[in-house]
């Protein structure tokens, strides 16, 4: 009983027409059908946040969404952050400068979480940033450097 359904997704501004099984989650479609492997997958039940992407600007767990549910939505992945020539975004540069990553497995999820959060709350305090950073898991950094990186990015954006 593996029905195929036509699903139209807009990822990083580009349209993709896909013939997929409805049970395909967004994270699997991004990685396997579209080939955008920047979005990682860890737990597949919403705990780790490695799969976090933006759907219409809001951070969501791509492992807890079927691709069919987000037709017509504007989906953004970590691949959208850097310039086409590879120049890193301000947020990515702050992660690098503050050692907000070590192995890097969690990094795409944290970047998209922070990108979505700061867009909605550009004036976020460090405490609010700390609470949001608690959404995702990192086994390497101890989180402090991630909080510093996001806070530095917010401060730099505010100072224009």
């Amino acid at each position, binding site marked *: *009983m*593996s*029905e195929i*359904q036509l699903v139209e997704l807009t990822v990083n501004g580009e349209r993709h027409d896909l013939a997929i*099984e*409805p*049970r395909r*989650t967004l994270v*699997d479609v991004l990685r396997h059908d579209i080939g955008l492997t920047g979005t990682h997958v860890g737990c*597949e*039940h*919403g705990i780790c*946040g490695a799969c*976090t992407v933006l*759907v219409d600007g*809001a*951070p*969501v*767990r791509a*492992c*807890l*969404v*079927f691709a*069919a*549910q987000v037709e017509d939505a504007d989906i953004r992945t970590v691949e959208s952050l850097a310039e086409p020539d590879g120049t890193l975004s301000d947020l990515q540069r702050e992660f690098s400068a503050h050692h907000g990553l070590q192995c890097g497995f969690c990094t795409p999820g944290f970047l998209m*979480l922070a990108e*979505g*959060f700061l867009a909605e709350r550009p004036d976020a305090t460090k405490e609010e940033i700390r*609470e*949001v950073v*608690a*959404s*995702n898991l990192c086994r390497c950094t101890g989180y402090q450097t991630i909080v510093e990186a996001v806070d530095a990015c917010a401060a730099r954006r505010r100072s224009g």
Partner: protein
Amino acid sequence: MKPAAFTYHRARSVSGAVGLLAELGDDAKVIAGGQSLVAMMNFRLARPEHLIDIARIPGLDTIVREGDALRVGALVTHHAVETADLGPDFRVLSEAMRWVGHLPIRTRGTVGGSIAHADATAEWCLLAVLLDARIVVEGPAGRRSIPAEEFFQGVFTTALEPDELIVEVEFPRPAPRATLTEFAERQGDFAIVAAAVDPDAPRVVLGGVAQVPLRVPAAEAVLAAGVAVAEVGEAAAAAIDVRDEPGASAHYRRALTRTLVTRACEEARTR
């Protein structure tokens, strides 16, 4: 793991969704935000053959103040409530949302989904009992409205019929002094114990100590008497029937109940 195969349906109206539920029977499940259901499907704890996506049904995502009452549509997300300005009368709803999972869960998870899922520690289930909410559901025979205390019947069990859809949750009265607090081992986890109080009702409701959100009349009587708040916590801790379980002993749950009820009452008194 990956979910089992299913057929995907997109409902355009409440009657359309109800019609599909009636037609497809036990093999069908509704999906709203998917923040409980997809996780269960990934584990194959749920394997519906048909999934009816209700997320695009128009009109179910609004919050409307009508006289004393606040009507919250089933598709309103936790995050929409968190960021809404509900005024002093219903601020407890916005404030409680920070306890529901994490931001990326709250951007998709819905009020109706939480109530239908009926986890006995879920903040929405506690709030519904605390504020005497009515759960408005629609089925093939039309609409009915169920008091929250009758709606929650047991572990993940509710008064909802398989062919009914929750369309709205109605909070009938302002609760400017109501508060909710809880304790979990990690920020964002489901609570071990959650406590909600409304001194004006008066109501004391606990999560994590019974199969459903539990009203504690003995503690409500003490709260109504207006004595020291610590006595309300003491009365709640004495009234509950908890057992030792892996991860939390009865002693620990009782201690958390005492502390959290007292804390919630203290917060309520500052308002």
